[in-house]
């Protein structure tokens, strides 16, 4: 049929072709697959800033002279977008490794693809349980939720030992929040506190009246929230407006200054467990913080520090690959670089803004220092700070 022919021609015209290369590019491309659009972009933005600073500081010497080049692909806020971004980075941009994605939820769907194609992925902010089980090419520099989250509860009890009745709320459509709430609930039990109310919500919710009034009627002393910045912040605002006076502990989703415009004055006093402190005393962190102050006149947030660390680990591991192979990266085949890089990442230790860290065989991070911060808002409720508690 004539129409069939026309149809197929039309079909093919619509596709794009591309060029291809076999060796590793120069400068060496490293993929950044984080959320640049959608509401998750609030975290992604901070990650991009951290990565950019890492690129700049590292390229002063580069990989024995060869520079690295960060390639950005927007994952958006959903799984399909992440898969597309990763595929683009791997197949079209030919990166040696990927830093990302922003959410654990996205990682569960996109990481298996990178793993199958033997491309190393370093997650700067995936802390859910099971991320590393995805495969041997997946690693992370964000300490697992089971190590970080309970610290906040300890701090809360230190502040107020009379806390007895607890409510736990979590976003049920986010893999990370579901994982984090499990850890929180276990911690509640281990401290012998009473879990009197367990409420669920969705990250897309804006009206939390039902959950908030349920919490209030249960007469709790402390509320623990696992969600993302937009929903979590909104929930806190509504809780405070409805008259909740107790302690609020926020999960990793609260670990960003982007929560301040959402809850304003109501953010004041929220306790958040953190994996990073701008005051950490090591040369890498000092340089990182100085550069960040230079550009933005304030302290760097955790997400930026973790993204910086991810890029740093990859870059330093590239140096190790060169010394092992005794050849320049740009003269090695791409697939060889990817495989060697994955091995090199898991050797030795790194002095990063997060302190001295290393990645073990499974890709898990070994980190020593953790902190708990308390959000402090100014009188107008506009400017906020994470104040590290001792």
């Amino acid at each position, binding site marked *: 049929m004539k129409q069939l022919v026309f149809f197929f021609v039309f*079909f093919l015209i619509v*596709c794009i072709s*591309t060029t291809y290369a076999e060796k590793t590019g120069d400068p060496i491309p490293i993929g950044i697959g984080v959320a640049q659009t959608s509401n998750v972009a609030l975290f992604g933005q901070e990650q991009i800033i951290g990565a950019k600073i890492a690129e700049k500081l590292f390229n002063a010497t580069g990989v024995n002279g060869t520079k690295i080049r960060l390639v950005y692909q927007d994952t958006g806020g959903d*799984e*399909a977008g992440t*898969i597309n971004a990763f595929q683009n980075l791997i*197949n079209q941009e030919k990166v040696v490794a990927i830093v990302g994605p922003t959410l654990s939820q996205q990682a569960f769907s996109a990481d298996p693809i990178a793993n199958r194609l033997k491309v190393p992925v370093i997650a700067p902010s995936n802390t859910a349980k099971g991320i590393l089980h995805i495969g041997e090419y997946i690693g992370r520099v964000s300490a697992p939720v089971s190590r970080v989250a309970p610290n906040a509860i300890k701090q809360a009890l230190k502040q107020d030992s009379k806390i007895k009745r607890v409510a736990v709320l979590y976003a049920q459509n986010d893999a990370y929040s579901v994982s984090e709430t499990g850890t929180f609930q276990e911690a509640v039990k281990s401290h012998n506190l009473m879990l009197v109310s367990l409420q669920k919500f*969705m990250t897309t919710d804006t009206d939390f009246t039902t959950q908030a009034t349920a919490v209030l009627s249960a007469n709790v002393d402390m509320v623990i929230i696992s969600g993302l910045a937009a929903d979590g912040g909104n929930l806190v605002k509504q809780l405070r407006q409805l008259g909740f006076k107790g302690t609020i502990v926020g999960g990793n989703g609260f670990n960003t200054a982007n929560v301040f415009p959402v809850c304003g004055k109501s953010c004041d006093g929220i306790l958040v467990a953190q994996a990073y402190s701008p005051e950490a005393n090591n040369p890498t962190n000092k340089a990182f913080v100085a550069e960040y102050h230079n550009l933005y006149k304030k302290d760097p947030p955790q997400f930026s520090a973790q993204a910086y660390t991810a890029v740093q680990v990859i870059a330093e591991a590239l140096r190790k690959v060169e010394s092992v192979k005794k050849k320049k990266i740009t003269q090695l085949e791409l697939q060889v670089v990817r495989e060697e890089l994955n091995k090199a990442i898991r050797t030795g230790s790194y002095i990063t803004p997060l302190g001295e860290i290393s990645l073990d065989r499974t890709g898990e991070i070994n980190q020593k220092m953790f902190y708990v911060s308390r959000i402090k808002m100014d009188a107008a409720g506009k400017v906020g700070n994470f104040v590290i508690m001792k």
Partner: protein
Amino acid sequence: MEDFLQNNGFLLVTLTQQALLAISLYYPLMTGQLSVASPGFYAVGGYIAAIMGTIDFFAPWRAVLGWAIFPLEWLIAGLVSAVLAVLVGIPALRLRGIYLALATIAFVEILRVLCLNMEITGGAIGIFGVPQMFENRWSYIWVFGPLLIIMLLFTWRLEQTRVGRAFKAVREDEMAADCMGVNPTYFKVMAFVIGAVLAGVVGAMSAPFLNTWNARQGTFDASIAYLAYVLIGGSRSMWGPVMGAILLAALPEILRPLKDARLIINGLVLIIASIYLPQGIVGALQRLRIFMIRRVSSMSGGS
């Protein structure tokens, strides 16, 4: 060639898949019914495949059947969709016009919320790690491609048979058709069921393709997208939905460099096409063809 497929295979397969989903919407439209229920059946089909592929209950089946479990998933997805379509279709298809559209929107949303909350569907997080049919993405063209060709041939033949003519009759004027002995409800439900089964089977094929499946696959946004394909392409012939799907699904990819603006352009396309191209692109091309033929014959012929 290998690299071309490697890089664009995903796009090609997606275009084929979207064309199939557009056709699934076209079927009810053949009987004059605007139903946006396809995403619901698509989601159900996908869940069936994802569940059969991942949960322990089916592990012995997977071990025994090997690759043959995939066609089995399609079969079951098709059957379940058919049953669901009959159950939903018979009461709903008594409604006309906008009311039917709303009912199908409600159906899709209810289904979505149910899937969001059941244990077996992985709740709001969905199901990850659905086993793959093939090593790489573009090989799926061997699954979607033949299905598309089969559907096109099937639809073409159908339009020439009694059933096809009955569809047209119902579309033109339901009451008149009824008077002439064509039972409108019977044919409307039939069209609805065919569309549903197609969407379900495509869903079952798509779950392995996309690797993860969750309630976000069957949403109102998807309904809107499929509707746009059909309307832009033209709702009078089967080529319309196919063209529309290819165009609108490829547009965001080709325009990827424009990133943020791509959805704006999609929206503009919707507005312009609905105002200036009421018969869709296929209709416009047909009019152009007729116009050209007239011009040629008036130039070569006489007065």
